[in-house]
């Protein structure tokens, strides 16, 4: 029996390379100013899904992401690595959503997809590091959750067995299907793109992307439905706008501060033997070491 797996993924700004101009005055992030990448732990989640697909015949992996139009990039990235299809949840009404409003939107979309055995997501995204969306989605769908997963061991007879990585050890748990699983970075890394899949899906586009193409663009999606990345708005997933965006977000950003280190007089030394020995002696003399 095949499993129908939904992978929740997020396109995130590469927070390792934030410039001065990356923040807008209202405290939200100007994502357009930054390189956008597939959230690292969501790739770990995708790999767990793909392994289940390899193991259980006739399984499918569906990607679901919420974001601006260009977030279709990560759906393509997922298709290149072995996912079967993807949904992009995109609408201005989603903008400014905190984790709770995001989880509401995702839960609406998952209900719309309807037929699933398992939902897998990365533990947290590098732009917020909150680890909240997975459990919040689980609650909205009234599904059990298993967080901090390192490996999905098996999914048989309506049950899934998962190894979790905790602070001081590991735990093996069994949960019913469907459940929501969030995966740690300590899990196996995601497989690379497959050349064949890259060829197959490189023209997979959302309807907005297709419309933006030049007139002489040859649209193959009618004959090849797999080239169609489904795009959904608030109405498509029957979400109530009051639970979305800023109005649906209990948390507000009051202020943002760019912290500058306090200037402090430091003793500057060279790597010379004399300097290093002098430092070591000084530290030993004042009992910092030794």
């Amino acid at each position, binding site marked *: 029996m095949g499993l129908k797996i939904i992978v929740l993924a997020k396109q995130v700004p590469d927070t390792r390379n934030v410039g001065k101009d990356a923040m807008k005055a209202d405290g939200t992030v100007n994502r357009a100013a930054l390189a956008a990448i597939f959230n690292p732990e969501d790739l770990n989640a995708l790999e767990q899904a793909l392994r289940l697909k390899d193991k259980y015949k006739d399984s499918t992996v569906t990607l679901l992401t919420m974001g601006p139009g260009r977030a279709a990039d990560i759906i393509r990235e997922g298709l290149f690595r072995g996912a079967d299809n993807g949904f992009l949840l995109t609408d201005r009404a989603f903008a400014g959503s905190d984790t709770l409003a995001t989880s509401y939107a995702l839960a609406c979309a998952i209900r719309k997809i309807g037929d699933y055995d398992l939902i897998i997501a990365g533990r947290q995204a590098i732009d917020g590091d909150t680890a909240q969306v997975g*459990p919040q*989605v689980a609650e909205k769908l009234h599904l059990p959750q298993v967080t901090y997963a390192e490996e999905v061991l098996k999914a048989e007879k309506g049950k899934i067995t998962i190894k*979790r990585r905790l602070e001081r050890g590991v735990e093996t*748990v069994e949960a019913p299907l469907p459940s929501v699983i969030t995966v740690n*970075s300590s899990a196996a890394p995601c497989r690379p793109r497959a050349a064949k899949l890259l060829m197959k899906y490189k023209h997979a586009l959302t309807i907005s992307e297709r419309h933006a193409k030049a007139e002489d663009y040859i649209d193959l999606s009618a004959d090849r439905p797999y080239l169609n990345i489904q795009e959904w708005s608030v109405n498509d997933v029957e979400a109530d706008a009051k639970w979305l965006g800023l109005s649906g977000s209990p948390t507000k950003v*009051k202020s943002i501060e760019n912290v500058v280190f306090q200037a402090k007089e430091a003793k500057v030394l*060279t790597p010379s033997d004399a300097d290093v020995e002098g430092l070591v002696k000084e530290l*030993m003399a004042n009992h910092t*070491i*030794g």
Partner: protein
Amino acid sequence: MNSVFVICEIEEGKVADVSLELLTKGRSLASTLQCKLEALVLGHQLNGIEKEIFPYGADVVHIGDDARLAPYTTLPHAAVVNALFREEKPQIGLLGATTMGRDLGPRVSSALVSGLTADCTALEIGDHEDKKAGKIYKNLLYQIRPAFGGNIVATIINPDCRPQMATVREGVMKKEIFSATHKGTVKKIDVDKLLKPEDLVVKVLERHMEKSRVNIKNSSIIVAGGYGMGSKENFQVLYDLAEVLGAEVGASRAAVDAGYADHDRQVGQTGVTVRPKLYIACGISGQIQHTAGMEESAMVIAINNDPMAPINRMADYVITGDVMEVVPKMIKYYKKNSK
């Protein structure tokens, strides 16, 4: 006035340090707000657990003692917390940013439709004016945390939803006895009434709770490496130095992400917070995300190729040079002079 609640975590039969730290913080918040501090403990065989909690200033300790609450699984704990919070309507709910707190917190906040801020580094009480709505909110919880990869520090508030929930990592807040003789009330929770069969569908098959092999938090000297170390192999010199100094090895997030060191060595916002007497930062540039976890070190030595590295601004000693040259020299001269 609605209370401040701390959801306590049990570790090997005792209240976890992070919970005692939160009780200390909760006590000061409750005093500012002139409300009660209440603690919630869920688990099994918790006889006398309140004695560990009262000295930290709790006015009420709610205890849910039931075999189905240990070991921790999400749904039964969430069922009890949701029921209690719906009844008690706390204004603030605090949890440790542990695997348990970060599993339970969002589940509860989603059920109660309340705001939750993860991994706060400071909690304060303050007011907020919503100019658009022409409304002034008094005595909100300012939830302060680094965000966006640690490049900014954001103050988050939940103006309209209660409880205002936050998680805080172990070691971020100070643990302090409020009064050794402080006593409060114990309230037993009728767990049986709250649990439904569907809350018990996730089963823990096996668990080995190994003590963390690495305990950098308790080390008075930390030798930490960053992405600038260049490789896992190069990290070896840090272990060598740590060994002669009786220190532990720490690492920045970038170094951990690159696979140079294990996650349990990570210092910073998403790792542990440390306050050693000496912190030797090797090949660490000094992103906020990292320095948030070590800025209270008594002394900092920064060893870095880059004379402009941000870490240098908080260092007491800056050695501008190659770590692979400097660290072996430190080992050599330490050995020479300690004889």
